C-alpha cells in the first residue's frame, strides 16, 4: 500500500494522519476515497497531517487541490498540517501556498475551526 491513513477525531474535526506517498494511482485514490468517505458521512472539518508523507508528485498535489475544493463545496474546510519542506516547495512553485490554510501545530489547526 502506497499510503497509510489513520483517522482520528477531536470534537467535530477529523484529522487524517498520512504516511507514505501521494502519487499518481494508488496514493492519490486513497486520499480521494478517505476524504469522500468523511464528506459522505457529514464530517466536513478536516485536517490532513502530511508529516509522514515522503513523496508527492503533481498528481498528488492535484488531489490535494481537488479535496480542498470538494470539501469547500460541501460547506466544510480542509486544512494542512505539518507540511514537509519538499511538499511546501511544490505548493510554492505552483502558487498554492496561499490557497491552503497551513499549520505547523495541531492545536492551532483545531482552534482555527472555532
Amino acid at each position: 500500500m502506497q499510503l497509510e491513513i489513520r483517522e482520528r477525531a477531536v470534537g467535530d474535526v477529523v484529522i487524517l494522519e498520512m504516511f507514505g506517498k501521494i502519487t499518481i494511482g494508488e496514493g492519490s485514490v486513497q486520499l480521494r476515497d478517505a476524504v469522500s468517505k468523511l464528506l459522505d458521512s457529514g464530517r466536513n472539518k478536516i485536517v490532513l497531517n502530511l508529516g509522514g508523507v515522503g513523496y508527492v508528485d503533481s498528481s498528488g498535489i492535484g488531489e490535494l487541490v481537488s479535496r480542498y475544493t470538494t470539501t469547500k463545496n460541501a460547506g466544510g474546510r480542509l486544512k494542512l498540517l505539518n507540511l514537509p519542506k519538499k511538499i511546501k516547495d511544490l505548493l510554492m512553485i505552483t502558487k498554492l501556498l496561499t490557497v491552503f490554510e497551513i499549520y505547523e501545530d495541531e492545536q492551532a489547526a483545531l482552534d482555527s475551526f472555532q
Partner: protein
Amino acid sequence: MMLAENVVELTIASQLEYIDLVTTLTDNITSMIGFDEESAYWINMAVRESVANAVEHGNKYDQQKSVDIRYTIGVDALRVTVRDYGEGFDPATLPDPLDPNNLLNPAGRGILYMRTFMDSVEYDRHPEGGMIVSMSKRRAPKQPSHDVSEGEHKRDAVGN
C-alpha cells in the same frame, strides 16, 4: 582525448506500476554520478512526471504501446529522454497552471515542475510517431580527488 558518454535504456509497458522501477533506476544513476541528495530528488521527480505523462496522456494506458526511457550520462550533464507512442500534442497549447483562473485545476502542473527542476526540457514530435521529451541537468564540477580531511585522518591513523 575522446570523452565517452554512457547510455542506459529502459523500456516499460504503459502501466503506472512500472513507474517505481524507473524512479529506482533514476536514483541509482544520479547517485552513481554524484548528484547531491537534493538535486537527485528533483531529477527523480522530473523523470517520474515525464514517464507518468507518457503512460497517462501519451499512450493512454494502451498496453500495446511502450514508454522508452534513455539516460545519457555525459561528462557535463545527465540527459534523459522519454518517448511515448501516442498522438502527440503541442505543449504551447496547454493551460498555464500559474494563471489565477487555473490555480485550482486538479491537473496540469507536471510540466511546470519538470521545467523548474531541470536545466532544460524540450518537447518534440518523434518522426515515427509519439512525443519525445528531452531533459538535461548539469553535473556539478568534479571535486579534486585530494581530500584534506581524508589526509588528516590518515595522519591521525599513522600517529596512533
